[in-house]
């Protein structure tokens, strides 16, 4: 057992920290989130040049063979600055699904472009009725000649509006919540019949609802075996969940530092408000939640690097349920301890609150993961 970072991992952490320091001052981030794109293509290029977009891919597909721990390190550092680029959507979801389930040709045609920063992806899985159930898929893919025809609606596809291609889950057989019968397809977002409606999300990012209206795709669009995608989706979702947990850990650490500093400088009744015991104890509780969360994010990443079993799933759900709870507590109390300042769009703390609240929801909220943990216990 070893809880320390290796030398290479320390270098990786330092390099992401430096990127965040240079590019993600609170004002920069606010401005960037208000542009039409919602992130920066220059940043994306830098991330590619620094090798981060290839970090999580296996060496066989041209990546650097980093594990969940390397992803955790990057995400924690990005979380400190609330980085806006579509790293999770492109690399950890779309890219990871293709690397995991794709054929040699599919991988060859897509992954190198992702690693070079020339291709953006998204994962369209949620539907209006599905809430957090990954197997609740009503979008259909019907065999037609050599290929398939896709029909259905996907909800809140993060970075769907900027993705060149989306990975779509669709049902090729089975009932609407069966694990069996779900397939994955890689679809060009400019294909005929694809209606992408992009909008802002509360955390300053971008998402899209996507309607597939009899969209014809070739047989080469099918990712992996027909009808057998559920376990692949679950695995990649768990890896992404662990990554989001790490992002939350970074965001909580930053929110706590900002709030702690505010307690030391803001004066009322003639003294810094951090001298009041009731606020000290609140801040200690926020610190403890953040520490417990860091432990869980580390644990989940390390377990994922050992293998993928029911124990891993249970660990990821435990982590997400702890971190979801902590996201709400730290986010809300950070605003509370800032008083009126916490309510402004201009000041950074509210942005941490909103991203933390979002992470609580992504890939299943606290209740969902506590239930999944129970089912696996």
């Amino acid at each position, binding site marked *: *057992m070893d809880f320390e970072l290796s030398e290479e991992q320390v270098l990786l952490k330092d390099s992401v920290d430096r990127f965040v320091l240079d590019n993600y001052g609170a004002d920069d981030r606010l401005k960037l989130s208000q542009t039409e794109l919602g992130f920066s293509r220059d940043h994306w290029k830098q991330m590619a040049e620094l090798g981060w977009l290839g970090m999580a891919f296996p060496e066989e597909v041209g990546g650097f063979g980093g594990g969940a721990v390397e992803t955790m390190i990057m995400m924690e550092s990005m979380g400190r600055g609330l980085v806006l680029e579509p790293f999770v959507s492109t690399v950890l979801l779309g890219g990871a699904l293709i690397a995991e389930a794709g054929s040699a040709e599919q991988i060859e045609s897509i992954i190198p472009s992702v690693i070079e920063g020339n291709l953006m992806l998204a994962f369209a899985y949620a539907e209006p009725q599905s809430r957090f159930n990954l197997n609740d898929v009503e979008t259909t893919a019907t065999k037609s000649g050599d290929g398939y025809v896709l029909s259905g609606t996907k909800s809140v596809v993060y970075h769907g509006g900027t993705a060149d291609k989306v990975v779509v889950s669709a049902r090729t057989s089975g009932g609407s919540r069966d694990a069996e019968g779900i397939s994955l397809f890689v679809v060009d977002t400019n294909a005929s019949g694809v209606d992408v409606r992009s909008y802002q999300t509360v955390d300053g990012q971008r998402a899209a609802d996507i309607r597939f209206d009899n969209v014809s795709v070739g047989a080469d669009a099918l990712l992996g075996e027909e009808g057998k995608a559920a376990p692949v989706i679950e695995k990649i979702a768990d890896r992404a969940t662990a990554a989001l947990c790490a992002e939350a850990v970074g965001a909580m650490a930053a929110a706590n530092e900002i709030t702690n500093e505010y307690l030391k400088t803001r004066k009322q009744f003639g003294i810094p408000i951090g001298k009041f015991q009731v*606020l000290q*104890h609140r801040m200690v509780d926020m*610190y*403890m939640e953040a520490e417990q*969360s860091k*432990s869980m994010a580390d644990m989940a990443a390390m377990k994922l690097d050992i293998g993928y079993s029911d124990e891993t799933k249970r660990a990821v759900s435990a982590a997400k349920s*702890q971190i979801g709870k902590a996201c709400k507590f730290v986010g809300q109390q950070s605003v509370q301890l800032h008083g009126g300042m916490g309510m402004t769009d201009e000041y950074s703390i509210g942005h941490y609150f909103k991203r933390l609240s979002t992470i609580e929801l992504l890939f299943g909220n606290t209740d969902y993961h506590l239930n999944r943990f129970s089912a696996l216990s």
Partner: protein
Amino acid sequence: MDLSFTDEELAFQAEVREFLETKLPADVKDRYERGLHFTKEGQVRWQKILNEKGWMAPNWPAEYGGTGWTATQKYIFAQELGRASAPPPIPFGVSMVGPVIYTFGSQEQKDYYLPRILNSDDWWCQGYSEPGSGSDLASLQTKAVRDGDEYVVNGQKIWTSHAQHADMIFCLVRTDSNAKAQEGISFLLIDMNTPGITLKPIIGLDKEHTLNEVFFDDVRVPVKNRVGEENKGWTYAKFLLGNERTSIARISQSKLKVKKLRAIAAEQRTNGGLLQDDTDFMRKLNQIDVDLMALEYTELRMLSRIQKGEKLTAEPSLLKIKGSDIQQALTELSVEALGMYGVAYEAEEIREGRNDQNFAPDYANGPMAEHLYLRAASIYGGSNEIQRNIISKMVLGL
């Protein structure tokens, strides 16, 4: 970063497991599993078995009789103790005064006391709190006045756990009344058989006798029984409290309790089914299980930092707060699991004295006793409110 065990570590785990399976006395195990207080005889018998194996003091330096284990081995050992329902040694000797003696004590003190602690020849108790000095420990008033080669001690200690079994007490006493509160305290090792010491039992919420008042009336203590320098006792006292906080989280014990609760939930009937199908109950249990997992890895991260040579300030206070919260939540839920039998409770002596026992399931004996006793977990070792003050000051700089 890596969670896996090496082959050597797996072999070590197997060795510990086998040892506990064959050597842990059944009566000791049963009491511990139920959450009942140990008997002195049973606890000493078990500690001597541990010492014979050389496993009494994993956290001591090897030169004083420690095991020389890595952090991972210590973790494995603690996990296996919990898994086997094996009680860890009583902390007052091996976890509290032992490290103070080998860190600050004289050669003579080390040579005499350390082997006796390892072999459980002396039962120690802790003379810290006084009637007027609880959270404000440094205000303590028990006085030690120098008279030749001896101190004459007068005063009173309170909440002294298991003092009725004790051969020795380590005591904070005031040796300079004119200095600032923290600067006039000394750390004495006192033989409980010294004339002038009297005990008065305090019966607890659980109707059992674990707590005591200890009175000192012209008690003469050799100066050579003082640890370290005169008036520097506060430093040693804080060192001891810091050690106490890392061992107080009782994580492997709580894991055992979760396992036991799952077993009770699989037997306890409710609404025509079993308690384990009651989603409200199971949700509470699983929430605690998640909290416990978070605490376990927080402890491992801290131990890793300590192993690396980093000096932690008040971070272990987190372990104390969260550890005691979890212990209390678990014992509360254990009582809840019993349904109406949660209220059937008698002190052990009265219950054992009956010829006719009630018809409660066997596992009903224990949870309430522990629930009552462990209300103290958020009070002793520095209350959880005081721990928050410490983190606020030392870690957050508020």
